[in-house]
């Protein structure tokens, strides 16, 4: 939003409540640690110094679902993990979002078999799918930015 540039001599800026809320939601989005497989390595790389997701206010990966508002499902979800994933998702406070990172979380990937969910959208509603096996950190960051666009378009009150 670039608040500094909008500040006049009086140090005052006017905007809508919706803008402020969406700005605060996008720029301090705390993801939950949910590394299930090799995608987690790329997720860690995206967090580390080279790609540095703290530019988007995402330097904190929370281990507790109650403190996070974004779930990055990084890896394949087995049939036994599904209920656990759903339970963690239910424990997250509203508003919450889900990124399915990688092919396995998006559609089952190469694991079309009895043990793996064919896409995590069978368990939790997904906002952004990131393709790749595993996706590079740039791809994950692109996914996060896509989610930011979605959040910025959110309305506080549904218009009828």
């Amino acid at each position: 939003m670039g608040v500094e540039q909008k500040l006049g001599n009086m140090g005052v800026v006017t905007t809508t409540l919706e803008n402020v809320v969406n700005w605060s939601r996008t720029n301090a989005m705390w993801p939950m640690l949910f590394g299930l497989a090799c995608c987690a390595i790329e997720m860690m790389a995206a967090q580390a110094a080279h790609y540095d997701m703290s530019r988007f206010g995402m330097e904190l990966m929370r281990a507790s679902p109650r403190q996070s508002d974004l779930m990055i499902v990084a890896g394949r979800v087995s049939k036994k993990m599904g209920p656990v994933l759903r339970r963690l998702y239910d424990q997250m406070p509203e508003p919450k979002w889900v990124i399915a990172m990688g092919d396995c979380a998006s559609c089952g990937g190469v694991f079309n078999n009895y043990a793996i969910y064919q896409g995590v959208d069978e368990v939790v509603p997904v906002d952004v799918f990131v393709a790749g096996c595993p996706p590079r950190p740039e791809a994950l960051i692109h996914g996060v930015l896509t989610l930011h666009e979605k959040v910025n378009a959110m309305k506080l009150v549904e218009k009828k």
Partner: protein
Amino acid sequence: MEKSLEPIIKDLHEKFGAAHEEFRGEAQCIVKAEHILAALTLLRDTHHFELLSSQTAVDYYPQTSPRFHVVYQLTSIEKNLSMQLRVPVNGDQPRLPTAANVYKTAVWRERELLDMFGIEFEGHPDPRRILMPEGTEGHPLRKDFPLGYEEPQFTFNYKEIDLRKPYAKE
């Protein structure tokens, strides 16, 4: 095959009529289901096979009948020997006496066989699935179990399959 295995195989043949096979230097004895406990006990107590290093099964459906072979891989640490016992098991109602009283490792191995092949073990102390979640239907390692459950979506049938997909609700 190891020379020192020969008297053991001869012993198994005399006591239980076990047929003997050899594959790439590894000894296999095919034992009937009613003799398996006695054979395992004999090997453990007399021939020093202290370790049941693996217990698994093979599904030969549809070529062979009976379709299952339950395989006991035994190791003798004292004599540095290993050998296999195989028990053919019928596919209609696969049942075997449990080996848990002879080798304690068999408890989890047999739970896995129950889970993956649906082979029941009489007298098993804890007959539950071990890998798949409770309420799973079927036994995944059987040859007649479907390979995958997701249908590939193409442009011509995308919507039709999409309607059937189990999407999560909020």
